[in-house]
């Protein structure tokens, strides 16, 4: 049902970088690209993103698998926007006007979104959620939020199994999903039962945690420290981005 953390268990340069630094870089670079409107700058970042993916030793197969939902969205945009965008007409298809601005806008969104997702994939998808939670805690994200994230993540698989069980039970009793009130009612009761079981399980889990001395502190077995390699990597990437942007703005004004 859910992708596992296969990318997290590889060995590469990116995997050696401190997780806090990786999260920081992912956030910084993503917003940097998202806020830019310069086509040349974004195209450069697009190439850079592929360099990072390569450094993280992610295979093309993994990239394609993870970009699939994005491609569906991009396809929709490419069909809709050139038709509905106002601007200079380029050509006409079946009496629909295709505008140049629409096509430019689509191209911009396509490159931006792929770039940001590749950044995310190479920096964040290469760590387990457990490590991510710990790194977030070190980056001063509120402890309660981190707790919520890790706990939710932990129980998604348990509740997922619970759902499979309920759905199997419905199927064995001859349930076939159709477009009618009976189907919707069945799904509503399925979802409802899922929440009821989740709530009852939460009670038991909470009691078990209290018995083991839970006091709100979340301990972790992942240990990592800020090493030289991470700091150097962080500085090099940021310097590169700054110089690159400066070059594009100041020098390469064609």
């Amino acid at each position: 049902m859910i992708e596992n953390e296969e990318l997290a268990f590889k060995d590469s340069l990116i995997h050696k970088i401190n997780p806090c630094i990786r999260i920081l870089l992912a956030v910084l670079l993503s917003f940097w690209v998202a806020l830019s409107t310069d086509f040349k700058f974004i195209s450069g970042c697009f190439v850079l993103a592929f360099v990072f993916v390569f450094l993280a030793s992610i295979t093309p197969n993994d990239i394609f698998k993870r970009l699939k939902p994005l491609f569906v969205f991009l396809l929709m945009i490419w069909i809709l926007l050139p038709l509905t965008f106002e601007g200079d007409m380029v050509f006409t298809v079946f009496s629909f006007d295709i505008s140049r601005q629409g096509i430019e806008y689509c191209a911009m969104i396509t490159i931006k979104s792929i770039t940001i997702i590749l950044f995310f994939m190479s920096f964040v998808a290469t760590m387990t959620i457990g490590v991510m939670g710990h790194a977030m805690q070190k980056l001063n994200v509120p402890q309660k939020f981190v707790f919520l994230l890790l706990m939710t993540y932990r129980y998604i698989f348990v509740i997922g199994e619970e759902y499979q069980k309920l759905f199997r039970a419905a199927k064995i009793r001859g349930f076939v999903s159709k477009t009618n009130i009976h189907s919707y009612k069945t799904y509503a009761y399925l979802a409802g039962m899922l929440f009821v079981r989740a709530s009852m399980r939460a009670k038991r889990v909470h009691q078990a945690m209290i018995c083991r001395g839970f006091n709100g502190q979340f301990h972790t077995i992942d240990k990592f420290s800020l090493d030289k390699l991470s700091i150097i990597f962080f500085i090099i990437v940021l310097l590169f981005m700054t110089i690159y942007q400066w070059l594009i703005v100041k020098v390469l004004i064609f």
Partner: protein
Amino acid sequence: MHISEGVLSGQIMAAGGVLAIAGTAIGLKNIDYDKIVNIAILSSAFFVASLIHVNIGPSSVHLILNGIVGILLGWAAFPAILVALLLQVVFFQYGGLTPLGVNTVIMAVPAIFVYYVFSPFIWKSYKITFTASFFAGAFSVFFSAILLGSALYLTEKNFLEVTILILGAHLPVIIIEGIITGFCVTFFKKVYPEILPNLQKLE
């Protein structure tokens, strides 16, 4: 219902980010460590339930359920939805990191609205419960679609047609969410009323 990476303008992302942080802060303040396990496991249930696909004609849609999230969790819906969306980014690359704030606001604000407006009617007769929860489910999706449309429209005026298309495409979803939420809340009331808020009003 997500906005993808690379679409929104800086101002909209900033506004969404600030609102999402404020809402999450209020939500976290309302959660104490006695309730946090319950909220976390319910969030996992919402995550799983939102992967359920129901048929409409030859096609199918997945459930959103932010109406039920609102009714069950109140202000805690904000952090719960943020966590769910963040996990969706990590697992499936749905939505994204930069529009995360806006996407959270799109889902969570209607949830909280529904909590205040519709949950007082839960403890009336079953007919009223069903009707109120139907509207809670339908309205929360409708409100989310409106917020999503506004975020797109404020980014780029040329998105107007796309916005109208999105609203139109969500009409059947709105009705299905209403029906599912109606049945689901009635089910809670019959089977496990402790899960619903304001239990004292029952007595």
